[in-house]
């Protein structure tokens, strides 16, 4: 099992219910077929894209964190690629960052992610 983080960027014309339905479908694939576990979901909601993607100027952002065996990913990503309303997605190794677009100085991390796991990162150098 490896910890991953995924950011979804949906077309902003997709309704909230559709987003929920899609996420449900993806995550079912991940947890039931793939044997993974989902640890956090954070809906950022609609925000402007820095540049148009497929002629869309706004996106609906969702960040999710999960743990899954690596073999589960190809099938999961295949599902994502089939979805035309998913403008972008990015799966990265999860390194203890919060799900929020946290500004180092200003913003507080939202949701359940405390900052307790970040203190031990000053080792080395």
């Amino acid at each position: 099992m490896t910890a991953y983080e995924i950011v979804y960027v949906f077309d902003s014309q997709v309704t909230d219910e559709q987003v929920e339905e899609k996420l449900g479908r993806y995550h079912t694939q991940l947890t039931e077929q793939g044997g993974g576990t989902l640890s956090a979901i954070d809906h950022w909601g609609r925000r402007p894209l820095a540049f148009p993607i497929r002629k869309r100027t706004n996106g609906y952002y969702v960040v999710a964190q999960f743990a899954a065996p690596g073999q589960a990913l190809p099938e999961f990503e295949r599902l994502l690629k089939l979805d035309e309303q998913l403008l972008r997605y990015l799966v990265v190794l999860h390194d203890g960052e919060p799900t929020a677009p946290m500004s180092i100085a200003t913003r507080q991390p939202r949701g359940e992610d405390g900052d307790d796991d970040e203190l031990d990162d000053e080792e080395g150098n």
Partner: protein
Amino acid sequence: MRRGAKSCPLCESGIRQINYKDDKTLSRMTTEQGKILPRRMTGMCARHQRQISLAIKRARYLALVPYLRRSSA
């Protein structure tokens, strides 16, 4: 300003990790056009500079920060 042992601005401010979702902070590390600032401008240590360049590239892909911003002039 202390010079020497630790001059990297991120090390100085005690930041351990750069989050690619933090578009506000990342855009401060680019030029107005959106180019990643070089080490000689940022003065960052190698480790932080690497983290930043990776973070900016991820953020670009997700359209959180632009690849290219036309200068306003």
